């Protein structure tokens, strides 16, 4: 045993994408001490993106969902412990208190605790068959209930017209369920997409047979011994439902950090390198809120954020600066359409559409004045990749150039 192996080493709380990435980046960065990866689920790390799509549709088995094989982690000297819940961080002694009564010392700590779906703050929301979608177990529960709904011709109601809700709606239609999506705002994905693209997605879902209700005010869940049977709206009407999927956002899992006195504000506050207010503790992924140079906080929930912050956090523990400053990107698969988003569209006041929205492959360019903020591409991966390069380089086409397919946006990168 080397000297390094006798120290407590680095403990990572959370065995999702960010936790696994941090562990692997520590090894890739030359760290030779102990790495302990703690997960609170019974199984090892798995891919979350397919949960609302191929997994929910029953097109994948558990083995296909595996993110990293346990033997692969073991070979890298990453000790995976599943089914472990951390109760408390004692920063003074650098020790974790575990739910099973045990303790675990650390010399460096990574918080990759993820996020928890917001619960519907309404009567009946805890009824059987009212389900969020976050974990593999959640998705399996939804799939089971959905199959019953299809067999009995009972409707599925999705509360929340965001990405999770719409992906679930698309999968439910694929499985033959009757689906209604209730959205509190006047349009789908209103905080993210340009109005023209919200409308396009509404059309897409309607053409696939989804009923959309906008400005919907949900008042309660109707349930009996058999679980949920309806969703009551503020106007008193009741939509029958055999399954209600709640997709109204998530809250960062920052309780451990907050109780330990780390700076938290809508998440564990980190800098661009994943550092928290304690030099021995870093954080990565959905649990974080990044403090930007202008003082504002940026919360991202994405695979890219998890992996990039994981790499930054690992570097920070190794005493290196590796800020994550590249353009954020996201994607969403609904039916046969792949939406790929680059940049952050908040504050946009003008939009240009490139390509043919009726034909399917097109992109929407978001501008604030003359400055390009974000690009949303539908079945147009080339536009998306180019947009990431443009945004990384701080380059803006004019709205007129963006909207003109005869104008080669790639030439801006060569200038």
């Amino acid at each position, binding site marked *: 045993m080397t000297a390094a192996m006798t120290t407590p080493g680095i403990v990572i709380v959370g065995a999702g*994408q960010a936790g696994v990435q941090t562990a692997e980046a520590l090894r890739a960065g030359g760290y030779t001490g102990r790495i302990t990866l703690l997960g609170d689920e019974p199984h090892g790390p798995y*891919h*979350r*993106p*397919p949960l609302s*799509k*191929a997994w929910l549709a029953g097109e994948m088995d558990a*083995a*296909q*969902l*595996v*993110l*990293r*094989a346990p*033997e*692969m982690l073991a*070979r890298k000297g990453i000790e995976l412990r599943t089914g472990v819940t951390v109760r408390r961080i004692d920063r003074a002694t650098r020790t974790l208190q575990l739910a099973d009564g045990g303790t675990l010392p650390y010399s460096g700590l990574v918080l990759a605790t993820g996020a928890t779906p917001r619960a519907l703050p309404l009567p009946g929301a805890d009824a059987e068959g009212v389900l969020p979608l976050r974990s593999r177990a959640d998705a399996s529960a939804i799939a089971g209930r959905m199959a019953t709904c299809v067999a009995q011709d009972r409707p599925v109601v999705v509360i929340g017209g965001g990405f999770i809700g719409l992906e679930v709606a698309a999968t439910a239609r694929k499985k033959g369920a009757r689906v209604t999506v209730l959205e509190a705002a006047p349009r789908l994905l209103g905080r993210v997409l340009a109005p023209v693209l919200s409308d396009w997605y509404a059309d897409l879902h309607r053409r696939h047979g989804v009923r959309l209700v906008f400005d919907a005010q949900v008042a309660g869940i109707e349930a009996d011994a058999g679980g949920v049977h309806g969703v009551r709206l503020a106007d008193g009407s009741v939509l029958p439902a055999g399954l209600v999927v709640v997709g109204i956002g998530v809250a960062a899992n920052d309780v451990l950090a907050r109780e330990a006195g780390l700076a938290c504000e809508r998440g564990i506050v980190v800098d661009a390198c994943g550092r928290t207010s304690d030099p021995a503790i870093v954080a990565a992924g959905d649990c974080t809120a990044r403090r930007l140079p202008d003082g504002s906080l940026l919360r991202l929930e994405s*695979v*890219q954020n998890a*992996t990039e912050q994981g790499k930054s956090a690992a570097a920070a523990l190794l005493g290196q600066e590796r800020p994550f400053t590249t353009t954020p990107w996201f*994607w969403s*698969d609904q039916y046969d359409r*792949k939406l*790929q988003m680059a940049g952050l569209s908040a504050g946009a006041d003008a939009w240009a559409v490139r390509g043919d929205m009726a034909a399917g*492959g097109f992109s929407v360019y978001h501008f604030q004045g003359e400055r390009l903020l974000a690009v949303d591409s539908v*079945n*147009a*991966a*080339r536009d*998306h*990749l180019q947009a990431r390069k443009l945004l990384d380089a701080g380059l803006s086409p004019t709205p007129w150039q963006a909207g003109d397919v005869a104008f080669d946006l790639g030439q801006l990168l060569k200038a």
Partner: protein
Amino acid sequence: MAHITYVEANGQSTTIDLADGWSLMQGATTSGIEGIIGECGGSCACATCHCYVDDFLAGVLPPPSQGELDMLENVVAERRPNSRLACQIRASAALDGGVITLPECQE
């Protein structure tokens, strides 16, 4: 079922049995083969499962979709005529005996 051989950049070769319907990316990440990342979980969204297929596979595989071709423009290692994304290749008996070579880097 297909026997697929993965040759990592350091020359290490591993042959695994892939059930029908499994992607070559899933086979690699679940079997502990280094050199394929598959960050996006097989959604053709990240280009971190780049591989080079052998002549046999090149002959039997359906051509890449436009989406895959576009993503291949973003791979980090050298793109070659036989470059593919392992998440977009589904195992079947027709691929039995195929060999893919993995690039030195994915990101």
